[in-house]
């Protein structure tokens, strides 16, 4: 393939970047410069707290290009993103629409994007250059369907930055236009008109960003942050995906491969069936939020102005077992906009939970933000501060944290009730066996106390147990009553001061020692009331030790 010199020259001639209003195509020759090269230093010094956010920026562009391509050809499954780590470079390739000449020109405009907020994953026109913060060169090759050309744009970030730093040392500066023109090159070559793609290379990854080349870390980041399909091993993935496609208008996914291996969205095992909640805004207008939601195909202007606004859709799975999920990175909820994560699992916990925040981690799931006025901040660690964000947090807190706390509380009560009933069943079973083999006289009282405690525990919690456990609980109460009566009748009245075996009488302790013994026993009973076996064993050892050593 040879360089199309004619095209290239024409390309160069009209490729003069000015501070004109490029969006409206009104070219105004600037009499003074409004932007200077140091802004590049800001970009290269790291716009993002996490180096992997740079990859997310390019995946966002790929995602938008693939969605546009799908719409163009009417195939909702077309396109994929391939990411390859090949030291010293990382490549991000997509077979989306690709960029035509105009878009490639615009690629050099810092802070310029013709994407609209709310309809595209990226829209600020800064992220496209984020690669220069991690690599010495940023190379973009792209071809648009139907155009028999491909364009290659190279940003020589390292030389550009060296130049800026040298000027800085000398107390000088350079207009941004001049800088970008000096350190970028554009090249046009012939290409098959059927081809459509964009390839980004971050060439010579800087030492401080080498972790980008770690396939495992990269895949893990992508699984948490970008719009990939649910892991096929997540048994509820299809269900949740169907909900999201039905209720979140801009929800979509793209296949993403890292070094040939498909990346899937994370999930946590040991999860209960998923549930979902809608977060509605402006509840005051209608009094109550609708309980059902069907997305409308009509445009916004035709929708009922008084209808409450859907702010977010949340799905979640509760931990199947006790308490929080163990996986600190993946538990909890995460905000997502256009299926890209915003912030991490701490953000919903901080912004939505006012009471019992630890319960946020009893779940994992996502909050897909549907309100286009809620806009991710440029580093995507949070949302931009505005009324819409406050409304989301306020309404989300009312709906989500309350609901999830209630579910967590109910589950906790149920689990506790089940545990108490199961423990009582075991106690009854062992006591029944001991009746056959004979209950030693010194443990009869303990057994009695344990049964009474177990009976009281079951009576207290049976109302919160699941139905099948309620039946078992009733049987426990009935059997415990029988056994208590039986034990009571067995008590040898003559051996005890008040009809009970009492170690204090056996040892003949003083009143002070007896009082101390009673206090200790009270504490032990409180502590081990729901562990009668342990309580009994402990008492036996204490009594045995006292009988053996007290008189020494």
């Amino acid at each position, binding site marked *: *393939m040879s360089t199309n010199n004619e095209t290239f020259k024409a390309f160069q001639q009209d490729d003069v970047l000015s501070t004109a209003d490029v969006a409206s195509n009104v070219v105004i020759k600037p009499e003074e410069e409004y932007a200077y090269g140091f802004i590049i230093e800001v970009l290269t010094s790291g716009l993002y707290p996490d180096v992997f956010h740079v990859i997310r920026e390019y995946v966002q562009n790929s995602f938008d290009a693939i969605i546009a391509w799908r719409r163009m050809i009417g195939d909702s499954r077309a396109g994929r993103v*391939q990411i*390859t780590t*090949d*030291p*010293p*470079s990382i*490549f991000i*390739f997509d077979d989306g629409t690709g960029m035509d000449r105009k878009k490639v020109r615009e690629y050099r405009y810092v802070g310029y994007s013709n994407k609209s907020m709310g309809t595209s994953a990226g829209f600020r026109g800064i992220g496209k250059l984020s690669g220069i913060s991690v690599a010495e*060169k940023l*190379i973009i*090759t792209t071809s648009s369907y139907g155009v028999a050309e491909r364009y*290659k744009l*190279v940003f020589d970030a390292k030389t550009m930055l060296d130049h800026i730093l040298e000027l800085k040392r000398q107390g000088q500066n350079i207009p941004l236009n001049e800088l970008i023109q000096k350190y970028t090159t554009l090249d046009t070559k012939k290409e098959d008109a059927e*081809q459509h*793609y964009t*390839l980004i*290379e971050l*060439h*010579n990854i800087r030492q401080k960003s080498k972790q980008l080349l770690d396939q495992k870390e990269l895949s893990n980041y992508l699984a948490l942050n970008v719009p990939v399909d649910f892991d096929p091993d997540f048994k509820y993935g299809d269900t949740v995906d169907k909900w999201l496609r039905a209720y979140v208008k801009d929800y979509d996914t793209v296949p993403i*491969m890292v*070094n*040939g291996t498909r990346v899937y969205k994370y999930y946590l095992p040991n999860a209960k069936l998923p549930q979902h909640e809608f977060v509605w805004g402006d509840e005051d207008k209608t009094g109550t939020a609708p309980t059902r939601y069907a997305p409308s195909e009509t445009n916004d202007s035709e929708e009922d102005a008084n209808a409450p606004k859907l702010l977010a859709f949340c799905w979640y799975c509760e931990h199947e077992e006790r308490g929080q999920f163990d996986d600190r990175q993946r538990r909890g909820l995460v905000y997502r906009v256009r299926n890209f994560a915003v912030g991490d699992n701490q953000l919903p916990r901080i912004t939505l939970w006012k009471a019992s925040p630890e319960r946020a981690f009893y779940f994992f799931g996502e909050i897909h933000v549907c309100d286009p006025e809620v806009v991710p901040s440029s580093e995507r660690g949070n949302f931009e501060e505005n009324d819409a964000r406050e409304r989301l947090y306020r309404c989300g807190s009312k709906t989500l944290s309350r609901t999830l706390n209630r579910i967590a509380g109910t589950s906790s009560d149920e689990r506790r009730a089940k545990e108490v009933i199961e423990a009582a069943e075991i106690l009854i079973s062992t006591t029944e066996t001991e009746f056959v083999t004979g209950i030693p006289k010194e443990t009869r009282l303990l057994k009695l106390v344990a049964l009474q405690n177990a009976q009281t525990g079951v009576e207290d919690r049976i109302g919160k147990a699941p139905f099948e456990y309620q039946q078992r609980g009733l049987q426990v109460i009935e059997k415990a009553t029988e056994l208590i009566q039986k034990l009571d009748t067995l008590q040898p009245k003559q051996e005890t001061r008040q009809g009970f075996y009492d170690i204090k009488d056996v040892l003949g302790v003083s009143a002070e020692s007896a009082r101390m013994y009673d206090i200790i026993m009270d504490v032990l009973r409180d502590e081990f009331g729901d562990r009668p076996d342990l309580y009994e064993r402990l008492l036996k050892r204490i009594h045995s030790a006292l009988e053996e050593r007290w008189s020494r």
Partner: protein
Amino acid sequence: MLEEPFTINKQKVRELNLRLIKEHFEKRKGQLRYFGLPGEGMRDILLWKEFFSYFCAVERGEPGEEFLLQHNLWLSAFKYGISDKLHLLRGELDNILLQSYDDYNNTVEYPFDVVTLDYCGGVIYKNSTGQSARANSIGELVRNQALHDKDFLLFLTCNLDSNDKGEIRKVFLDIQRELNKLGVDADQAIKGYLAHPKKEAQLKMYVPYLIRTLSASTYRCETFKPVYYLGNRETHMMSFSFWMERSSHYAAGRPNRQSLVQLLNLSAFECIDGDLRQTDFDIPRVEVS
């Protein structure tokens, strides 16, 4: 390496090599490992790709702008759906083979089933100290392959630039002496080779002899009929193919089944506009009584 424009003659060579790949590796289709210099167009890889699961490609790039051709090579890999099989090594082929790693410390992961060395220049080139980096690097490749007990196909393409300082003549005289010791009279043939106006005739014998010598202690080398043709920019090119056999029942150092006499008598193909014409360069055959 510049992207090679499509030439029908080179494509014919690729097709001939594909036949050899099929012949030797049909049973392992889809599992083979490639090492070579495919260029940004990756035409050989694209033609042979159904046989391979791994491609190790070397790309040096143009001095000062090495990254551009390397980028283009990756672009081809993505466009043609083989990026997940590609391992790119960046740097000079000879250095990479000699060191077993590239300019960025990416290692050569031996072994390979097919090695294709599409040199831009000649094969005899020696540096100022008389060392032949190319020969040494091929020797290192063969040694590493032998460590894995691997039979492989070696394809080698070069132009006729030899920078020859009597090396070729010396090799032919060695061959003549060697055969004379065995009572074989190859004088007329050797004379014919050395006096032949076409350099292709000499290279037809010289390159296989070089490969046999470099691999003598570890491999038995079978040379197929080479092909010479006009490549892009009217460059005279010559392609060689070798089956490098290393199996347990052939003890290292045993003579090749293909004798020197057979090698001297081996004809070649001239490829013109994609058509092959067999030739013996009108060099007298060596007869063995």
